């Protein structure tokens, strides 16, 4: 895009919708991810006219998704804990499908910062400096959180590999 040209919001959704959904899935699991995606793009559309033309749209969207996911997690914590055994099957309560259940359990068990850093670096492909901007703290801390997150995932979910990860 040349300077002073803002592309139609539809193009932003087309280009980044898939990535933002994958990020939301890592942050929240399959079920809540859809609500977070909707909240993210609605808020983004509201703010879009004020986004500088040369801004990195993906980093901007991930920043919004980050805040929306925190809102969802807070709301979830306010809800009472489920009673009795947790079933293995999807039950509409935010527990993802069985096929990604094991990995999700491992992802969910990560400390928030590690899970976020993994999502923003390995799923969204953001640079550590951008991730530091979202999480607060230094670039090194963001790099460390992502590395620790991957290490923990490998330990708890042996099928995990990091083939093709961005440098």
């Amino acid at each position: 895009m040349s300077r002073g040209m803002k592309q139609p919001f539809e193009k932003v959704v087309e280009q980044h919708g898939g990535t933002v959904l994958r990020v939301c899935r890592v942050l929240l699991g399959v079920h809540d991810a859809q609500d977070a995606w909707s909240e993210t793009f609605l808020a983004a559309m509201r703010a879009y006219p004020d986004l500088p033309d040369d801004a990195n749209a993906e980093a901007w969207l991930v920043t919004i998704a980050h805040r929306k996911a925190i809102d969802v997690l807070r709301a979830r914590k306010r809800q009472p804990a489920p009673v009795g055994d947790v079933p293995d099957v999807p039950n509409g309560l935010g527990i993802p499908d069985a096929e990604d259940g094991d990995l999700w359990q491992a992802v969910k068990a990560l400390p928030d910062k590690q899970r976020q850093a993994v999502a923003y670096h390995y799923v969204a492909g953001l640079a550590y400096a951008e991730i530091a901007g979202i999480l607060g703290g230094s670039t090194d801390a963001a790099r460390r959180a992502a590395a620790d997150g991957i290490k923990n995932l490998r330990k708890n979910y042996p099928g995990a590999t990091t083939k093709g990860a961005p440098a």
Partner: protein
Amino acid sequence: MNISPDYFASPADPGTLSKLRHRLGLAAEAEGLLDVAYTTIDSPLGTLLLAATPKGLVRVAYAVEDHDRVLCTLSQRLSPRVLRAPRRLDAAARELDEYFSRQRRVFDLPLDLSLSKGFRQLVQRHLPEIGYGQTRTYRQVAELVGNPRAVRAVGTACATNPLPVIVPCHRVLRADGTPGGYVAGPGAKQALLSLEAAA
């Protein structure tokens, strides 16, 4: 990255995304954020892009105009809050279908002429007064809008009509009866005139 092909790295399934995009269109409309809604429809003259603001239909574009470019222009001139959201265009799509199948002679749609200014907009406002199946010359239209010497400016107003077909610039001809210019080419203009003549 391939922590799990299913979970982290795989493309989100297209069904989920298209459902979410559809839902976004509805939510944006409900929140008053959908400044420009658009869709595309098939017609005997190729794919048409239809775009509407909350005020009304604002743009009809032929494929030859390059729909991506048209959307960029709408984004710059009206608002970047542009989404493919067909619902707002339902009535326009239906009326155009009826027109192309010779079941409609008059369009009954709210229009937003804000892409045109001044004299051009004045001319475009008057063009629907030329009835279905009739034609006028550029000079007659100049007289119609009260500025008989502005023949050339009428030509420009027709050439820059943001709502072809709906605002019938195709009914304006040269004094010698030849079609004159048209955004989608003289063939398209002739096709519309023939369609109306045959009805």
